[in-house]
C-alpha cells in the first residue's frame, strides 16, 4: 500500500458548490422564450385551420342527409343532399390503395432489410424508392393516365385514382417497413435462429410482429396523406354527383373532387358543401389515425 495523499477526515473548506450564475440564468430565460415562441408559431396555424374547418364545416356535417344522400339531381343552390357518394369513393379508393400497396411495400421492405442488405439489387431499389418518394402526385396521375387509360385502354375510374395513389403510397410503406425492421434488435433474430427457427419464419413470426405497430402507424399516416390528394383524381378520375358503387368502372367522386367541384359553386349551398367535405375529410383522417393507434396498441410490444 502507498501512503494516502488525501486526508478524508479533513473538514471541507467553504462550500463546494456555487449558485447558478447570472449569465446562465439569462441564457436559460432566452432559450425558454425562444422555444415557447417556436411552439406558438407551429401550433397557431394548426389550431386556426382546424377551427375554420370546424366552424364552417360542422353544420352541414351534422345533417343526417350528409351521410346518406348524394348530390344527384340537385341544383347548385339547393340546400339539401349530402356527400355520401364522395365519402364512399374516398374510403373505397383508400382501401384499394391500401390493399395493393401494403403487401408490395412490406415485402420490398423485408427484402431490403432482411435479405438484400448490401446487394446491388437492394441499392438500386433503394435509389428508385428515393426517386419515387419525390414524384409529385400530378406526375403519378399523368403516368397512370398514359399507361392505364391511353395505352391499356381502360376508362377513368376510382380504381385508376387508386393506382396513382398507389405510386405515392408504395414508397411510404417501403420506407416505414424498412425503418421499423431496422430498429428490431438483431438479438431477437439470433434468439429465434438459436431455437432452430428458419429465417423466413423468424421474419414472419418474430421480426414483423415486433415491428408491426410502427408499420401500421406509418401505413395509416401515409393513407391519410394520400386520401387528400386531388391532382391524380382530377386527371384519371372524374367527379360524379351520384353514387357509383363500382370502383372499377366509371366516374367516382371522392371528397377532394367534391370540394373542387363545389368550390366553383358560388351559392351558399356550394360554400357549405365545400367546408362540409373538408370537415368530413378531416374526420375520416382522424378516424384512420385513431384506428392506427388502437391497432398499434393491440399489437404493441408488451411491457
Amino acid at each position, binding site marked *: 500500500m502507498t501512503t494516502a495523499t488525501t486526508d478524508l477526515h479533513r473538514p471541507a473548506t467553504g462550500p463546494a458548490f456555487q449558485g447558478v450564475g447570472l449569465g446562465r440564468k439569462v441564457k436559460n430565460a432566452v432559450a425558454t422564450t425562444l422555444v415557447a415562441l417556436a411552439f406558438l408559431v407551429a401550433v397557431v396555424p394548426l389550431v386556426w385551420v382546424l377551427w375554420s374547418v370546424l366552424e364552417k364545416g360542422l353544420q352541414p356535417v351534422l345533417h343526417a342527409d350528409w351521410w346518406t344522400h348524394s348530390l344527384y339531381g340537385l341544383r347548385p343552390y339547393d340546400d339539401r343532399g349530402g356527400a355520401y357518394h364522395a365519402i364512399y369513393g374516398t374510403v373505397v379508393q383508400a382501401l384499394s390503395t391500401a390493399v395493393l400497396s401494403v403487401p408490395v411495400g412490406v415485402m420490398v421492405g423485408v427484402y431490403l432489410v432482411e435479405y438484400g442488405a448490401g446487394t446491388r439489387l437492394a441499392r438500386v431499389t433503394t435509389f428508385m424508392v428515393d426517386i419515387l418518394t419525390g414524384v409529385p402526385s400530378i406526375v403519378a396521375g399523368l403516368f397512370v393516365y398514359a399507361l392505364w387509360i391511353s395505352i391499356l385502354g381502360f376508362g377513368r375510374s376510382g380504381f385508376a385514382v387508386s393506382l396513382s395513389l398507389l405510386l405515392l403510397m408504395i414508397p411510404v410503406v417501403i420506407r416505414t417497413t424498412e425503418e421499423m425492421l431496422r430498429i428490431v434488435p438483431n438479438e431477437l433474430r*439470433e434468439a429465434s435462429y438459436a431455437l*432452430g*427457427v428458419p429465417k423466413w419464419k423468424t421474419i414472419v413470426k418474430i421480426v414483423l410482429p415486433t415491428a408491426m405497430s410502427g408499420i401500421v402507424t406509418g401505413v395509416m399516416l401515409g393513407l391519410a396523406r394520400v386520401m387528400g390528394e386531388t391532382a391524380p383524381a382530377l386527371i384519371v378520375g372524374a367527379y360524379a354527383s351520384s353514387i357509383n358503387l363500382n370502383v372499377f368502372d366509371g366516374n367516382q367522386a371522392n371528397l377532394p373532387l367534391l370540394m373542387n367541384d363545389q368550390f366553383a359553386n358560388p351559392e351558399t349551398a356550394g360554400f357549405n358543401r365545400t367546408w362540409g367535405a373538408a370537415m368530413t375529410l378531416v374526420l375520416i383522417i382522424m378516424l384512420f389515425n385513431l384506428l392506427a393507434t388502437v391497432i398499434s396498441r393491440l399489437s404493441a410490444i408488451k411491457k
Partner: protein
Amino acid sequence: MAKRIDIKDVNIYYGKFHAVDSVTLSVPPRSVTAFIGPSGCGKSTVLRSLNRMHEVTPGARVEGQVLLDGEDIYAATVDPVEVRRTIGMVFQRPNPFPTMSIRDNVVAGLKLAGVKNRRRLDEVCERSLRGANLWEEVKDRLDKPGGGLSGGQQQRLCIARAIAVQPDVLLMDEPCSALDPISTLAIEDLITELKQDYTIVIVTHNMQQAARVSDQTAFFNLAGVGQPGRLVEVDDTEKIFSNPSQKATEDYISGRFG
C-alpha cells in the same frame, strides 16, 4: 441427448479479418467447458461457430470441422437450422421476445416448429421453467409479457426457452454478466443441474465462476493487436487453476496479465 463436440483446426473469419486461428478442442458429453480469456480474443466467435450462428453475420465464415458425435455440422449437406435446433444458445444479454407472454416465450421454439397441442405446450412450459428455476416466481403470471421480468428472471426465462426445445448441447455466452450475485448463483446451480442432461459450453469473464461450474477450462488469448485469437491451452479446470502448463494462462488467472 448430450453429445460430444470435437472442434478440429477451426479458423474463423469476419470478411477478410482472421478472428480466430486454428482451434482444436474436444468437449465431452455431460460436462461443462468454460472459455476464458481477455476481451476480443474470440471466445464468443468460437462459441458462435459451434451452432453455425457465426455465419449469420454478413461476410463471416468458418473453416475446419466441428464434429457433433462424429458428424461434421459444416458438411455441405447439413441444414444450419437443424444444427441450431440441436445446439441451443443463451446470450449475454437476456433477449425475450417482446411481443410474447412468458408462456409463449418459453414454448416459442416448439410453437414455431408447429406444435399446437395445448396440453403438451403447457407441460413443456412448466418443465422448462422448473428446469430454469423460474417456475415458482412466474407461475401466477404466465400470460404477462416476458419483458416485465427482472434481468435475472429474463435470463432464466431465456434459459427455459433454450431448454424447452430439448437441445443436445447448450452454449452460453457470459450468461451472468448482467446479473446480481444471487441470480448468478441461481444460474450457476442451474448449470450444475443441467450438466446431468446436456453438454454445456460457457463463456465467462469471472474466474471464480469458471472454477465453480466447469469441468474443463479453455484459455484463449491474442498474440497481439490485429492478430487472430488462439487457444492457449485447455485442460481440467482444477489443473488450469492450480498448475497451468502455460505461463500466459497463469499470468491471466492470477491477474498479472498484460
